[in-house]
């Protein structure tokens, strides 16, 4: 049973990690907590259901469509909810947080109206492929999710540290004005980041749909809050921290259910938020800087 639970935990944790990567990218560059990320993730999952179950198209089209739609959503999020606030006089640093909360409520209730409150099954033959190892059943989807999350983390780390675009992004994160003086097109960099992060959310959405066969409008909120807990755990803006934090949370939640009281499963993420923030605001894997948590 332990082995099975570990597999469950890793699957869940890998999904958390992909969601958290999107969070951490936006935070790393803009210093903004994007509360709408969970809802963009949910929309990605719905697009997957629509393409495969309703239109009966192959899975790779579903992936492309979900990435496309969430990328557009990311662009709109940046244009409508974030850009108007940037550089405006007298706007408090809380404004982007409130404005993304607005986007999240809007998206959640919009999909309520469009798709209904119910669960939508994600039926696809790919999700049925399984291996039998002893008494344990492993699904190909589970392996795929883990592989995708690792790949994304490696690619993102490489991209951020080695490529020109990545360097521009880090420069923007460091200091927006200096970066723009040095010839970085900061506007484009920021837009790219939000789009990239949203597309990551879309990928995570499809993966969740396939792994758990359940897509509903409420899933964004709980997943968004979990993602939030993870980036706080792993250190804001830290790509490897997001991955480690995601796996840690996934495994902890699974183990609490397996050996403890499943009623407190959801509380773990929130207790983590409170304790990490109060005791070690830079996160477990974060560097100890004076500005952390400020």
């Amino acid at each position, binding site marked *: *049973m332990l082995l*099975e*639970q570990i597999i*469950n*935990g890793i*699957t*869940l944790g890998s999904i958390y990690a992909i969601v958290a990567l999107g969070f951490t990218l936006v935070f790393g560059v803009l210093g903004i907590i994007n509360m709408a990320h969970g809802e963009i993730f949910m929309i990605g999952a719905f697009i997957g259901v629509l393409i495969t179950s309703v239109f009966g198209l192959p899975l790779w089209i579903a992936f492309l469509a979900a990435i496309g739609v969430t990328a557009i959503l990311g662009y709109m999020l940046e244009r409508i909810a974030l850009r108007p606030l940037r550089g405006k006089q007298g706007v408090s640093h809380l404004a982007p947080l409130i404005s993304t909360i607005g986007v999240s409520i809007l998206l959640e209730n919009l999909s*309520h109206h469009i798709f*209904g*409150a*119910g*669960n*939508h*099954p994600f*039926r696809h033959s790919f999700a049925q492929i*399984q291996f039998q190892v002893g008494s344990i*059943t492993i*699904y190909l989807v589970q392996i795929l999710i883990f592989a995708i999350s690792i790949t994304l983390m490696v690619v993102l780390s490489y991209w951020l540290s080695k490529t020109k675009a990545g360097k521009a992004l880090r420069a923007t994160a460091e200091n927006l004005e200096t970066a723009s003086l040095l010839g970085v097109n900061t506007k484009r960099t920021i837009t790219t980041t939000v789009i990239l992060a949203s597309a990551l959310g879309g990928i995570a959405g499809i993966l*969740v749909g396939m*792994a*758990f*066969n*359940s*897509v*509903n*409008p*409420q*899933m964004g*909120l*709980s997943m968004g809050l979990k993602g939030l807990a993870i980036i706080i755990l792993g250190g804001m803006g830290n790509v490897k921290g997001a991955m480690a934090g995601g796996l840690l949370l996934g495994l902890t*939640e*699974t183990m609490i*259910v*397996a050996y403890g*009281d*499943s*009623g407190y*499963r*959801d509380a773990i993420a929130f207790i983590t938020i409170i304790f990490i923030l109060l005791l070690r605001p830079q996160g477990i894997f974060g560097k100890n800087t004076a500005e952390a948590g400020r």
Partner: protein
Amino acid sequence: MRNSLKKVYLLISVLMVVMLAACGEDNTNTSNASENSGGPVSAKIGVISYMTGPGAAYGEAITNGFNLALDEINEKGDVKIELVIEDSAGKQDQAMTVAQKLMSSDDIVALLGPTLSTEMNVVGPEADINGIPIMGTSTTAAGIPQIGEYVFRNSIPESLAIPAALEKAVNKYGVKKVAILYGNDDLFTQSGFDTMKAEAEKMGLEIVTIETFQKGQSDYNAQLTKIKDLQPDLILASALYNEGAVIMDQARKMGIDLPFVGGNGFNSPQVIEIAGEASDGLIVATPWFGEKDDPKVQEFVKKYESAYGHKPDQFAAQAYDALYIMAEGLKNAGEADRDALRDALAEIKDLDGILGKFSFDEDGDVIMEPTVLIIKDGAFQQFE
């Protein structure tokens, strides 16, 4: 300073009065056709229903059921009923406000609804104090008719449905060990769980584990893996069909082939739609079985389908019967009076409806024999 303070107060109070006036206009039209001797009793009945928001589907089925019954009753002409339908959006405070709105209008003699037990817990006591009969058609949690003597319901409570289903399942499969899984952040599923646990203990079954889940959760693998490892003979799942269907799907994928026993909220054709083959083996008790070999039932199903384009569920059926119960009460009371109607309702015995023979007990709760169903080959069938 004090003056400007006053100004702002004035501004706000003017605003408030204007807007309040806007929301109160519609219920001022006094009824013209109240209680006249000789002719049939005519009465207005208020309906509080969950028509917008996540559970709007329940409210829709319920109002459809009412409207279907309304046309038939008025056509028959023993009593003339008019329905005033208000939306509660599934929220306690809104249910309370619309209840106040309906109750404060004197020509409304009774209330039907609200949809959720949480709402009834708020509205029930208020209706009781104001002396207006209120009947829930979908409120199944424990303790509702006990709120007061004006509070009734015609939906069978979990304490009737779950034991019936459990008993049959235990006898059929020789069950000794059960695992319980329930949603602990919902009144409906929590109250179902309380009944399940009490009933399992009463029957001397061993409860190997009790697991919970929360709304919006999509991953039940951890709980199910634990249950699988403990090898129960049966899984008791107090879940709404939405979560319940996903749970069954994930369980079957994991290789758990055990039968599931569910409560009222699990009982829906939607389970089959969401979970497909994985839903085989779900056992529920219900007052409503659409395939029943009864001309009354078949006529209702036919009528409902032609009017609304899909098959009625138990919510529609219960609402349909509820209005007939009200009509019977009004007929017996002989006048459109709240107290007379309450007394007449309490007297109702063995009224024939599409759900079977119906009576109230001394609390205003249902006395009825539920049917036990099982999903087999993708359809509900009678479970023997």
